[in-house]
């Protein structure tokens, strides 16, 4: 196996939140001691419900927010710790981010061509003609006609705007893109188009993705490996086929069971009770203990750490 382009070790992110007026600040542990690798040319799907820490993980990876503890290594450069700024500068052009809301992430007053060329303008060194040529090339890459460069974002549908967002992300030829819920704001008929586009771009440019989503079916359609987060912790990580056909963690099993299938003959098991626990001052044991059908005494006091049970399959559960 080649050297991973992303290495995350024991990554933790705390936020300070104030509760009420003048009250003491509380600690919110959004990401709790997680580790994973991403191999070049592959996609890690990161799934979880709201508050699981999946978006925070994505933001940590591209340096949008600093880590509290742990280590992130991108293309061999460690971008956490005291040399953070300099290390990030070395790899910055190889990283990009695609956001969920293609409307909110495009400036409504800028023409589409200028939106796409903004990274080029910031990087500098592009002549007018080269810049125009590059914009045309990028539009073609994402399946839009050249002429749209002269138009404004509001003239486009959600799916087309997401194509524009992707064109902008590709401007500086990144190698690694964090896609945070890139299709969840889109209609079903648009989702498939964007997923297929991301797959095509990966093939063409050898891109690696961290693909963050709450929709397990969407993740199955694009990921190579899948990691499941719950209340800040990484509970299971496996190659895609293994995760979907033989999930081990009780939370992954419940999550897969709960998804409504487009099949009226399927009878779903009764829903899992309870709700995601607060990540303010998390309890000592397993975060899923309160909802787990297999809970044991040990789960309430001792936090299970991920254990590799077989090739490439890690699960954080005292059952294994």
């Amino acid at each position, binding site marked *: 196996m080649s050297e991973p382009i992303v290495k995350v070790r024991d990554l933790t992110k705390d936020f300070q939140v104030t509760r009420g007026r003048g009250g003491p600040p509380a600690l919110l542990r959004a990401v709790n001691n997680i580790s994973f690798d991403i191999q070049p040319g592959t996609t890690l799907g990161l799934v979880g419900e709201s508050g699981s820490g999946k978006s925070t993980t994505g933001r940590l990876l591209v340096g949008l927010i600093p880590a509290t503890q742990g280590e992130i290594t991108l293309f061999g450069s460690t971008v956490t710790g005291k040399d953070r700024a300099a290390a990030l500068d070395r790899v910055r052009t190889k990283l990009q981010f695609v956001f969920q809301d293609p409307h909110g992430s495009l400036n409504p007053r800028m023409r589409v061509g200028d939106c796409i060329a903004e990274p080029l303008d910031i990087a500098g060194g592009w002549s007018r003609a080269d810049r125009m040529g590059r914009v045309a090339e990028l539009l073609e890459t994402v399946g839009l006609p050249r002429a749209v460069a002269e138009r404004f974002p509001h003239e486009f549908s959600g799916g087309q705007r997401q194509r524009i967002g992707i064109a902008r992300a590709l401007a500086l030829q990144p190698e690694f893109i964090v896609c945070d819920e890139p299709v969840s704001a889109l209609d079903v008929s648009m989702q498939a188009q964007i997923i297929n586009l991301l797959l095509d771009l990966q093939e063409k440019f050898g891109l690696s993705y961290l693909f963050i989503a709450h929709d397990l079916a969407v993740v199955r359609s694009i990921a190579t490996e899948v990691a499941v987060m719950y209340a800040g912790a990484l509970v299971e990580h496996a190659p895609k086929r293994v995760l979907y056909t033989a999930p081990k963690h009780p939370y992954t099993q419940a999550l897969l069971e709960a998804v409504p299938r*487009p099949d009226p003959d399927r009878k779903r098991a009764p*829903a899992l009770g309870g709700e995601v626990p607060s990540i303010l001052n998390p309890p000592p044991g397993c975060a899923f203990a309160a909802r787990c059908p297999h809970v044991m005494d040990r789960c309430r006091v001792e936090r299970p750490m991920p254990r590799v049970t077989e090739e490439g399959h890690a699960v954080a559960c005292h059952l294994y």
Partner: protein
Amino acid sequence: MSTPLAAPLLEIEDLTVRFRTDNGWMTAVDHVSLQVGEGEALGIVGESGSGKSVTALSILRLHAAATTRLPTGRIIYGGRDLLTLPARQMRAIRGGEIAMIFQDPMSSLNPVLTISDQIGESLRLHQGVDKATARKRAIELLELVRIPDAARRVDEYPHRLSGGMRQRVMIAIAIACRPKVLIADEPTTALDVTIQAQILDLLRDLQQELGMSVILITHDMGVIAEFARRVMVMYAGRVVETAPVSALFRAPMHPYTDGLLSAIPKLDVDVGRLPAIPGSIPDPTAVIPGCRYSPRCPMVQESCVREAPALLPAGPEREARCPPRVAQWAAARESAA
């Protein structure tokens, strides 16, 4: 027409709703008809701009008057046309006999009133009960929607509750007056998947316990498959297909339904590239001659662009707005007979 055996509880005939926009008038709902039987679960499925929510809002006349042209058609409930009912009588029906829940439980709840006040409001308004009785009834309703520790929760404010709990409160408010019809507009879309399953279980149980008819509006074919008995598929303001749920998923009769079902990412198999529907959902103000799906349809014929297709009967309780497909079906049935 696919009429249920008993007289329908609620019937929409030829409803058309138009809105004023910056680019002129747009037709959000275009000659839509539907029936809901007593105790039935009807699903309306469609993407953005399909007109599914506007159809639902029209039943309760909840549109902004300033931008809506008076809807045409009829909405018959209890022998009366809701579209022409005096405002006072409409208020008695709204929240009393026909209730509605919405996608976002946070913006539908008033942040400065307690749960008790908000559930009590509809009881005091429709049934004239006093405040103490309303609070007692509110606790019973919270227990009915399975909120733990109801006697304590009833005096709390919405921000203290999670998204799932807020949606349960919305459901409690909606069923407070024992409505005959519950309209649920994307009731689980804003919720996490494990919470969505809880709310769908709850809605189904309540429907059976209270004998309500439910109109469930969603973009999610999975939710439709789980909840609805009969399904109406909408595209760009028109009904394209109506069918019993099992028939719809087994053998869709409209190319749009085909496309939608194939484009859904699959949870239980690996499929490689998904067969996407080409093109985009049409701009609502755009004028498309003939069938509104024709620019994206893989089996488009010359006649599809020439004239607007009618909704044609295609088997028991089935209709489809695709003359070529319905003709194929009729020919196959004839040769089998």
